[in-house]
C-alpha cells in the first residue's frame, strides 16, 4: 500500500519533470541545456518524445531526474544563512554553472 503510493509520487514527479524539460527545450534549446544540465544528444531525444512515450517513461520505478551537484560546497552555500546571503548565492551560482557536464 505504502509502496504503491510512493510509486505514484515518483510517476507524478517524472511526468512533471519530463514535460517541463520538453517545454524548456522547445522554447530555447541553448538555455534549456544550461537550465537542465543535460547534453545536446539527450535534449534532442527528449524533444522528440511523444506524449505516449513520456507517460510510459514516467511510469518507471526510478526517478528520471537526479541531484545535479555532488559537491558539498555548493549545498552548504545554498543553505547558508550568512549575512552576505546574496553573495553566497552568487558563489553557488558560479560553481553550479561550471559543474555542468558539457562544461568540462
Amino acid at each position, binding site marked *: 500500500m505504502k509502496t504503491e503510493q510512493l510509486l505514484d509520487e515518483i510517476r507524478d514527479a517524472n511526468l512533471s519533470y519530463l514535460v517541463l524539460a520538453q517545454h524548456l527545450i522547445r522554447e530555447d534549446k*541553448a538555455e534549456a541545456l*544550461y537550465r537542465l544540465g543535460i547534453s545536446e544528444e539527450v535534449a534532442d531525444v527528449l524533444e522528440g518524445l511523444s506524449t505516449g512515450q513520456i507517460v510510459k517513461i514516467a511510469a518507471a520505478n526510478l526517478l528520471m531526474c537526479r541531484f545535479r551537484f555532488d559537491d558539498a560546497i555548493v549545498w552548504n552555500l545554498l543553505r547558508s544563512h550568512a549575512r552576505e*546571503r546574496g553573495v553566497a548565492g*552568487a558563489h553557488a551560482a558560479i560553481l553550479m*554553472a561550471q559543474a555542468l557536464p558539457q*562544461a568540462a
Partner: protein
Amino acid sequence: MRLSSVIDDAAEVRRATSLIELGARLQVLESETRMSRERLLKLYKEIQGKSPPKGMLPFSTDWFVTWMPNIHASLFMAIYQTLIKSSALDDVEAIVKAYRLYLEQCRGNELLAELSVTRAWRLVRFVDAGMLKLASCTKCSGRFIVRDHDLTRHYVCGLCHMPSRAGHTKDPAKRLAH
C-alpha cells in the same frame, strides 16, 4: 556595408534590437552588427526612447578584478562559457543569452546587476585577447576572472577569502540620492 539579403538584414536588426534592449552602448552595436551608424541610432531611439549616451567605453581590465565586480564577471563568464560549449551559438547570441541568465541569477539572489551588457561584452573580448583569464580557486575550485599576469598557482577567490571591508559599500540607491 550594403546587405545583399533582406533575411540577413532582418537578422542584423534582431541582433541589434536584443543588444539595445539589454542596454548595450552604441560602440558595441557598431562592432557587432553590419548596420550603419545612422540606422543604429534610429533603432536605438525607437527602442529606448532617447539618444544613446555619448563618450568612450570603459577600457580598463582593473574593474573586473575588484571584489564585487569580480564575482559578477566570473558568474557571467561561467554562464557564457557553458552556453558556448554546449550549443552552436555565435558569440553575440551567447552574450545576449548569458546576460539574460545572469540577470535572472542576480534577481534570484537579490543582488544588483553590477555588470552591464557593455561590460559583459568587453569582458568576453578581454578574455579572447588574453588580457583576462580564468583561474581555479584552490579552495572551492570555482573559476574566477584574473589578470593575464596574475600568479594563479595558489589562487584563492574573493569569496573563499573575503577581504575585511568586502560588501560594506553604501546602498547604491542611497549613493545616487546624494
